[in-house]
């Protein structure tokens, strides 16, 4: 099972090492990890994609909560959320293929951000499925390089991560 987790942490030196160290020491997987400052510059949000069964997920959430520098952990399993990822992809684009790739990019509302005589570099954002679909259509043209951010996620509606229940409140 694949899970997206949001972790609100102190924006402090060493916090990333604590979180990454926790995952490696306990043998949990990290598929992707995105981290940056929030509106409040003393805080950062990490979005982590991980895999594991219910049992492992429960341990991951508890272990993250136990870190002193972690303020809140949200598991998007029980929350309605929006997740988006950005990719940059460099694809072979010569002669008549250039037109075709351009159209494909438009359909997916992507952008060509760099051009060379033999390649296009395309930026596209979207959810997992859209990105998978785009990449599979692009593949036959010859993908030369792919860089992805991994998803970031936010809950739908007026809920915010800071409005979620406090750490330590959960019981049972």
């Amino acid at each position, binding site marked *: 099972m694949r899970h997206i987790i949001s972790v609100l942490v*102190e924006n402090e030196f*060493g916090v990333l090492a604590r979180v990454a160290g926790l995952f490696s020491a306990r043998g949990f997987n990290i598929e992707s990890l995105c981290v940056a400052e929030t509106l409040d510059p003393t805080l950062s949000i990490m979005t982590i994609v991980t895999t594991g069964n219910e049992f492992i997920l429960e341990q991951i959430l508890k272990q993250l909560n136990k870190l*002193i520098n972690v303020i809140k952990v949200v598991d998007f399993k029980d929350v309605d959320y929006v997740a988006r990822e950005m990719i940059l992809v460099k694809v072979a684009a010569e002669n008549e293929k250039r037109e075709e790739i351009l159209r494909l990019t438009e359909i997916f509302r992507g952008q060509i951000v760099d051009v060379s005589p033999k390649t296009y570099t395309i930026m596209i954002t979207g959810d997992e499925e859209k990105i998978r679909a785009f990449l599979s259509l692009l593949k036959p043209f010859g993908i030369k390089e792919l860089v992805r951010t991994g998803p970031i996620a936010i809950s739908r509606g007026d809920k915010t991560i800071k409005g979620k229940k406090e750490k330590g409140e959960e019981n049972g």
Partner: protein
Amino acid sequence: MPARTGAQIFVEVLRSEGVDTIFCYPGGATLNITDCLCNCHDIKQIVVRHEQAAVHAADGYARATGKVGVCLVTSGPGATNTVTGIATAYMDSIPIVVFTCQVNTTLIGNDAFQEADIVGITRPCTKHNYLVKDVNDLPRKMKEAFHIARTGRPGPVLVDIPKDVTAAMTDAKIPEKVFIRGYQPNYNPHVGQIKRAMKLLAQSKRPILYTGGGIISSSASSELLKFAELLNIPVTNTLMGLGGFPGTHPLFLGMLGMHGTYAANMAITESDLIIAIGARFDDRATGKFDEFAPKAKIIHIDIDPTSISKSIKVDIPIVGDSKLALRKMIEFYEQEKEDFADYHRSIKEWHEQIEKWKTEYPLTYTRDGSLKPQFVIEKVYEITKGEAIIATEVGQNQMWTAQFYKFIKPRTILTSGGLGTMGYGFPASIGAQVAFPDRLVIDIAGDGSIQMNIQELATAVQFNLPVKVIILNNGYLGMVRQWQELFYGKRYTWSRIYSPDFVKVAQAYGAEGMRITREEEVEDCLRQAFENGKPTFIDVHINPEECVYPMVPAGAALKDMLLV
């Protein structure tokens, strides 16, 4: 606030935390602080002979007193020498604060002389750690370190202080209160969960209490005793839980697990309800996870949510302080006594069964004229009546002590349960002796383990700490030999060890040395040693091939014990 140096702040914070003792070892980077402690006679400064021992001593001090143990060492090798001590305290949830000094902030990251990234190295074996880069942060970070070490599930915290920070001036105030937004441990158990637990208990016919170190750290032993007696529930302890319930009590089954008693392991296996309190289902206690307590529902009370359902799925999790939870359960029982009438009637059968197990296979050993370690430990118990503070090393010596010494009070056993650190016991007993100069403190050691920190004899002599070390000398790394005897065709590769003459070693350090080779000498010699007022080694030549029984082979189920 007048301006003070970082070193002065350091001492101020120690005072504000009520620290009366530190275990320390100097070096270039500690000098500003060391100099500042020159005239502080209100803070005992015990200078050890190896930084590992400083941490174990602080840990022993903490286990014996319940207060936070403190040590201070220099950068680089001083800091890296603390790692085993820190990991030992971490595994057993012992509150200590380790101060390491660091190279100047301007040199950090430069591979400077005696630089080690101790914050990076200890991240996975501390509850939390800090590098103080700015002297203005020093008071807050130090206060937070003490707070984190002693609250919630206790544990070691490390604070790394660069030398220039100890010299820098600040007018920062010492904060009175600590607030950490990401750290608010939850002490109060959920009332609904307590009710559910007690309802389950009322229906149980074969309940058992399985309790661990959490009983000791939350000072819940009198509540545990009351609860067990009110509900007539048999009690088994983990190694860490010993002393949390009187070892002489009729409801006590002894320790469970790999070297647990037959009665305890059978009772767990046949039980229909386990109430686990402050214990974490360690594999040495549970045996094979899949076959642990196959017939039981499990209630688990623990301050640390990560301990719950980590290795064994539980039915009723209760996050909170053991003492508060037990109080709530006692309250519930006292209000709803009528609901327990059937319970009290049907539990009699369970006790009869347990009695049978106890008499069928009690803890025992063969008296064959040779000097048996179990006999020695029984004598230590008889003489001290369970009033001494007993440290152990690791190996057979540790298991025999756990089995044959009856711990009747909390904070009387100092032993490395989680990490199993040989070399822990002697410095830990030094720490306890510093805290209680008038009590009898004994380290029950092995001939292998004692050599891992034997240099601390000098500390004991220098500071007049009359610790007694009983070396159960079998000429082997006995526990390793036992596994080789049972599972490796008696090939004693690496485990036969040469040792020096421990009596002469003790004497060379200026301590007392004694030797026992026959049963008849045991009592007199021990009595003499316990009364001589000096640090003393007692070299006891025990039967070299004695084994610890019962034994659950690694990976087997608890019921599959090898008996004597």
